[in-house]
């Protein structure tokens, strides 16, 4: 008996000491930091370097959240793959530091025909990493390969259909791939013919799917093409090395054959897959990473860190209101007043600042901020303005009107959301806001993994779904096209003829009239949100990263690949 008590006491002391030690840890860290600081001040013996001057050693250490599934530009469909492609290969155009598409493999701006249907590109004298020249034929081959249905390219037909001539027919197997609207006039001249004028066509040329591939190399490698870093050719700022095809680490080495190699300062980038954000932060704090993403609950904790940087994104999240369950039976959400009531009944600022707390912005729009600009570089957001802003009084009026029209006095609706901690927190917030502000509404939450959500979306088996979209090219149409009648991503039985017409016009008679085209978009957005409340915008996502002060010149892009390391460098690390 005496022994047990003693044991218990010892156990409790030990457990307590673990907690105490954990609490003490934070103070120690701060002390360490201040010690380091004073050390720096005293380090006067080393000659002081000019501010911003690159260091002698240019090696960067980064983490990715997932392994590379593929680097075959016709097959790539994920964020990691597109990011790798953007740094080891190069298309006709590339997004520059200001995210403007500038000639890359093209030597000069393309010439566009009067009707906007033909583009002629002149290629520069660029080389593949094996020393052979990049030719117009390489583009023809790559594009034909991407549109060939046998390749199974997810982005080939998605990006080219309705844009590049004959792409739709070829992708459906009704026409030979040789008929695709791309021709090599000579070794260095490329002519592309379009189905319709596409005002954002040049920005598309920076997208991975349109990169060149050398036929001889691809054919000789066969099925092994692009399955590891040796089975790929590079024409971009870096080459990929030490990638075994499935592994959790790889490196980039500076590509000396790259045409603009003199402006590439980094000599090597080491990448490791780190799935757990907490681990990434620890590695960062230990100096093993120069940049680490901070997600979920950690974001709030680190948002005030002196090394935290906010990176606004162009993904917008919204509620989809399903008007026909399983595509047949009308739901209460088919009533416009019910939709408006819900859309206006939750406070978006608190959600973004307190619940998400990761740099996200409240959204009263579908087309994101800092994404699309008109000819005079005016943000589309300044042209279109705010819609469906939070207003409880109005929400209540719409709600009562809607209930009366439906002839009921209460409703039960389901919110379908993701299964991450953050989405669950967000769903709880919606439930409390909606149930408090709209009398007689009961919200049921359904939180499922991504693949399950996609399937429920596909069969339209939900009431309200929290969904989001990131753009594939720099034009409002990348978002507005989603909700045309029978659009592949509509999947909520929304249909408005006027909206459809505006979107159709923007692709036809307005295609060459940029100003009127943007006005049509603004009008369409207003119909979708303010008039119809087909969806309820929630927030534009932001990300928080910890970034070492010596890591400079990283460029993040609003669409396509996430980053360019071409202009990045290390300064002041040593």
């Amino acid at each position, binding site marked *: 008996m005496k*022994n047990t008590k*003693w*044991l218990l006491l*010892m*156990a409790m002391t*030990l457990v307590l000491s673990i907690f105490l*030690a*954990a609490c003490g*840890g934070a103070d*120690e*860290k701060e002390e360490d930091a201040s010690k380091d600081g004073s050390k720096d001040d005293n380090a006067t013996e080393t000659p002081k370097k000019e501010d911003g001057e690159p260091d002698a050693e240019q090696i960067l250490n980064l*983490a990715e959240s*997932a*392994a590379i*599934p*593929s680097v*075959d530009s016709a*097959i790539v*469909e994920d964020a990691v793959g597109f990011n790798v492609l953007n740094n080891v290969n190069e298309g006709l155009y590339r997004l520059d530091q200001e995210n403007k598409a500038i000639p890359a493999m093209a030597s000069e701006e393309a010439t566009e025909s009067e009707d906007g249907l033909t583009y002629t590109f002149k290629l520069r004298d660029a080389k593949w990493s094996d020393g052979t020249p990049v030719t117009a034929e390489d583009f023809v081959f790559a594009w034909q390969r991407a549109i060939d*249905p*046998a390749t*199974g390219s*997810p*982005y080939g*037909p*998605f990006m080219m*259909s309705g844009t590049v001539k004959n792409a739709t027919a070829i*992708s*459906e*197997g009704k026409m030979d791939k040789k008929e695709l609207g791309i021709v090599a006039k000579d070794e260095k001249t490329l002519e592309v013919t379009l189905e319709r004028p596409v005002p954002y066509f040049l920005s598309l040329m920076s997208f991975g799917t349109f990169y060149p591939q050398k036929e001889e190399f691809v054919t000789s490698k066969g*099925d092994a093409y692009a*399955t590891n870093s040796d089975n790929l050719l590079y024409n971009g700022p870096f080459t990929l090395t030490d990638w*075994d*095809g*499935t*592994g*959790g*680490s790889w490196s980039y080495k500076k590509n000396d054959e790259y045409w603009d190699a003199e402006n590439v300062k980094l000599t090597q980038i080491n990448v*490791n*897959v*780190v*799935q*757990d954000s*907490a*681990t*990434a932060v*620890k*590695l960062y*704090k*230990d100096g*093993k990473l120069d940049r680490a993403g901070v997600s979920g609950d950690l974001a709030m904790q680190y948002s005030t860190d002196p090394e935290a940087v906010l990176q606004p994104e162009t993904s917008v999240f919204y509620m989809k209101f399903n008007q026909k369950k399983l595509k047949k039976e009308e739901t209460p959400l088919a009533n416009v007043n019910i939709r408006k009531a819900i859309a206006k009944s939750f406070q978006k600022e608190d959600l973004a600042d307190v619940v998400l707390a990761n740099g996200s912005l409240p959204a009263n729009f579908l087309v994101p901020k800092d994404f699309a600009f008109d000819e005079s570089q005016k943000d589309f957001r300044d042209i279109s303005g705010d819609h469906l802003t939070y207003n409880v009084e109005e929400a209540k009026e719409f709600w009562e009107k809607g209930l009366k029209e439906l002839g009921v006095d209460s409703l039960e609706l389901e919110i379908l959301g993701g299964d991450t901690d953050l989405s669950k927190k967000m769903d709880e917030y919606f439930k409390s806001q909606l149930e408090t502000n709209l009398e007689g509404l009961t919200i049921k939450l359904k939180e499922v*993994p*991504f*693949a*399950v959500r*996609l*399937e429920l979306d*596909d069969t339209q088996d939900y009431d309200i779904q929290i969904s989001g979209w990131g753009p594939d090219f720099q034009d409002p149409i990348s978002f507005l096209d989603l909700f045309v009648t029978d659009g*592949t*991503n509509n999947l909520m039985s929304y249909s408005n003829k006027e909206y459809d017409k505006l979107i159709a016009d923007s692709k036809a008679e307005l295609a060459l009239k940029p100003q009127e085209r943007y006005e049509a978009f603004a009008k369409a957005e207003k119909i979708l949100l303010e008039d119809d409340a087909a969806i309820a915008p929630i927030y534009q996502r932001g990300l928080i990263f910890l970034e070492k002060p010596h890591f400079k010149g990283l460029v993040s892009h609003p669409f396509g690949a996430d980053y360019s390391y071409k202009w990045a460098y290390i300064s002041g690390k040593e």
Partner: protein
Amino acid sequence: MVKYIGKRIIYMFITMFLIATATFFLMQTLPGSPIASYSKLNDTQKAIVEKKYGIDKPKPVQYAIYMKNLAKGDLGTSFAFKGKSVNDLLASRMKPSFILGAQAMVFGTIVGILLGMIAALKQNTFWDYGSTFFAILGISIPSFVFATLLQYYVASQWHLLPVGLWNDGWKSSVLPSLALAMGPLALSARFIRTEMIEVMGSDYITLAKAKGANGFEIAFKHAFRNALIPLITVLGPVAAGLVTGSLVVEQIFAIPGIGEQFVSSIMVNDFATIMGTTLFFSAFLIVVIFIVDILYGVIDPRIRVAGGKA
């Protein structure tokens, strides 16, 4: 003995066959398609891609094809890693997991046995309570808690070993192995202590003492060997625990092992990889259990695995 082993091997294959069959059909009930970009493909492409992966055929045919390839040792092509065989995928991921598992197992059982013996021989002293306490901690706290604590103190605070990743030679493997070793360590210590105490009280030990054998000889030659038997019984389940523990520990230390692969393949419905990793884990466990059964006979001649007449 040979007959027994032969029989066991046949049973092992039957078990594997049943596991493969069950996993194959259970997997078909997963919602969603294994092709991530399914919604982006048009009908022509869908047909071609499905044909390429053989998922256009009826399920029983797919099953037959899969089992036929499996018999040849071919685990198929991954959906998520475009065009890469699951065999290659597992091969490149197996090494870190294997090193961690083996180190944890060896270190955990050896230290556990020593602790258990000390506790038994110095019964009801500080050593006994200390090691008991340690063992209770090890059993009740899951390995990922140890992983986080070790990572925080040993790596982040004291900078003795790497925080994570698999690029620093043996140093990278120390902390994750230690975290994983806590389970086997605690369990071995408990078992050895209990058994040793029991064995030390038995008649033949008294006899050995009476014959004048020294303490060391008694402890190792007579008591220890008998105390090992129950421990060996639980080593199989312990190995199973290591496998599940490694799923989380690998993630905490950002180690590109097979556990990480297993979790992410389920998230994206990568059927071939799910099958491959499940079968790999099953095979591993079946083999461990088999070895444990064989070891019985080696350690204790009284146990006749062949089931001969007593």
